[in-house]
């Protein structure tokens, strides 16, 4: 049976500084290892800087162990120059085969090109990720929202302790927005989250309730010792907690709305 001919195409990824995609299609049999080797030579020759190379494998139907060996050699050359080689788009059968060969201990696998590029931008170019939520001012919505942001932080590599602190900050900011904002499903709370490998920032904007403004302004006044609770404080002290868990906190408060900006640096 004749094997499907191997085709290889190299493309730079637009909008990135150092990412390259190698599109493979056909069968990566033991007879074609020189083609794979030549491809890595081309990358070595044409691109002097450290390259993040994505091997796009969605059109590949077979990988021989000899071909995998070539990929390992190619990765080693890239790593030595501060680059990386990852796989994207492997079908389940090939992924299973590579796992059995132990390749998952060496290479990172991404479901598709987009995920691989996104990981590159996050890890190498330190691009922030953005999350924008808008929700009615209902307390019952706060637990899933704080949990979502905390999960995003964990998924982005933040540790459990940071993720827990982020969850607490989000919880307190949202609870304050609900407590001091206008009620009703049309008076939505707007939350913008920006996360990068070093920090997470939130801006939470709510529509102020004029009748509750005095209470909010009172909360914003600095106290002599904000860290001390009293046993008759049945109501929480959310703003103090946010101050102590975050690195920066600013509150803009006027008749139209209240905007809370929090910055928290990654600690783990």
């Amino acid at each position, binding site marked *: 049976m004749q094997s499907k001919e191997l085709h290889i195409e190299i493309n730079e990824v637009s909008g990135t500084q150092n990412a390259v995609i190698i599109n493979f299609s056909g069968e990566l049999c033991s007879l074609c290892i020189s083609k794979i080797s030549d491809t890595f030579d081309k990358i070595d020759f044409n691109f002097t800087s450290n390259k993040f190379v994505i091997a796009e494998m969605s059109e590949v139907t077979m990988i021989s162990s000899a071909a995998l060996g070539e990929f390992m050699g190619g990765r080693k050359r890239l790593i030595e120059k501060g680059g990386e080689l990852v796989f994207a788009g492997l079908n389940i059968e090939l992924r299973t085969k590579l796992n059995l060969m132990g390749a998952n201990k060496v290479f990172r696998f991404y479901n598709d090109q987009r995920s691989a590029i996104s990981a590159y931008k996050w890890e190498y170019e330190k691009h922030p990720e953005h999350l924008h939520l808008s929700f009615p001012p209902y*307390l*019952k*919505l*706060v*637990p*899933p929202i704080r949990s979502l942001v905390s999960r995003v932080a964990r998924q982005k590599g933040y540790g*459990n*302790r940071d993720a*827990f602190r982020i*969850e*607490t900050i989000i*919880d*307190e900011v949202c*609870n304050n927005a609900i407590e001091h904002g206008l009620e009703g499903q049309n008076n939505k709370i707007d939350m913008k989250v920006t996360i990068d490998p070093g920090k997470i920032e939130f801006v939470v904007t709510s529509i102020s309730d004029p009748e509750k403004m005095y209470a909010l302004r009172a909360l914003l006044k600095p106290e002599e010792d904000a*860290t*001390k*609770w*009293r*046993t*008759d*404080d*049945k*109501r*929480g*002290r*959310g703003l*103090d*907690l946010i101050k*102590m*868990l975050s690195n920066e906190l600013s509150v803009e408060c006027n008749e139209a709305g209240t905007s809370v900006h929090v910055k928290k640096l990654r600690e783990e």
Partner: protein
Amino acid sequence: MESQIELLYEDIPGKSNARLIRFVGDLDATNVETVLEKVCTLFSEGFINLIADFKKLRYVNSTGLGILLHFSKSAKEKGGSFKIANVNENVYEIIEIIGATALLEIYDELDEAVAALR
């Protein structure tokens, strides 16, 4: 969707006016009223010495902490106590950084909290 919290009660041998409450889940603004009601019912039934086991309490926020301080104060007013044991690292940090450790009776182990009952 409210956060899930479950309060499981157990007798404490030899202490007729004491109860062990195991907190399971998250304590926050969505369920604090329910917890307040349940614990106040215990007080009204004469259980003035309460031990809260936080081994399975995953999360607490400032509203939840406020209610814990309220339980502590209420128990003392009734001549009893509200003791907390087995607090996880994250929850303890929240209690600690806002200075509530000085206001709550916190024990590392449940046995220590039971032994400290009058």
